[in-house]
């Protein structure tokens, strides 16, 4: 009887958290992808390039730095899966989708800022990734991943 209670406490909570995280994490990811697709369609008219200038000659009237960033984290369930994946090796899909979402979100925020400021294109786009260390476990854990997208917004003479 005692053993059953002890086992329940030891395993019950992590399993409960895993189940909870599975549902919330999936819901969060799905709604995030939905919002990304909608906003990507909306900002499709804003050309962006990693090159230094727009390929066709433009008469530029204004330029300025634009940036977008996001800090994103995995849910408990996916982190658990990724941990298992660490045993056998191979593609860690849960992290792939996390980074994909974060990059697209950062680029979208950059584009949205560019159009708010009246720019017509963003050139010299750069992406940077950094890990935020968690204050638990002597900074070994990951609190989240920050993606920064930045570039130079250009305004075209009309």
């Amino acid at each position, binding site marked *: 009887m005692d053993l059953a209670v002890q086992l329940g406490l030891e395993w019950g909570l992590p399993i409960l*958290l895993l189940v*909870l*995280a599975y549902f*919330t*994490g999936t819901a*969060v*990811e799905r709604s*995030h992808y939905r919002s990304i697709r909608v906003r990507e369609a909306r900002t499709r008219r804003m050309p962006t390039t990693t090159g*230094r*200038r727009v390929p066709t000659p*433009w*008469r*530029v*009237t*204004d*330029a*300025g*730095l634009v*940036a977008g*960033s*996001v*800090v*994103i*984290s*995995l*849910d*408990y369930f*996916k982190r658990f899966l990724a941990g298992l994946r660490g045993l056998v090796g191979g593609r860690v899909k849960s992290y792939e989708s996390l980074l994909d979402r974060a990059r697209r*979100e950062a680029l979208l925020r950059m584009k949205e800022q560019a159009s708010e400021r009246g720019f017509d294109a963003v*050139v*010299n786009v*750069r992406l*940077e990734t*950094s*890990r*935020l*260390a*968690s*204050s*638990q476990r*002597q*900074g070994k854990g990951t*609190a*989240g991943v*920050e993606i*920064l997208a*930045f*570039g*130079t917004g*250009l305004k075209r003479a009309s």
Partner: protein
Amino acid sequence: MLLSNTEEIPGQQIREFYGVVTGSTVRAKHIGRDLMAGLKNLVGGELKGYTELLHEARGEAIDRMAEQARSIGANAVVNVRFSTSSVAQGAAELFAYGTAVRVE
């Protein structure tokens, strides 16, 4: 102050060159935000508190860089770059640097 991460400000001519200017700030997250982020770490998704914190901090680093550029007589900073490093547990340094110039 014009800022750009290209070598020149498109549509403008560089008249004077002043060299590298830098700006940085080290920020630690406060405990309330950390707790919220801990919860968010369970369910997954964006850690808005951190996004805001880093956004503000980066703005501060850019401002300091621009201030330095202004103090030496520049009116633009080109080739702006950013770097982030976790210097200590729960603290990060945000660093912005670029080349101060005068454009017309």
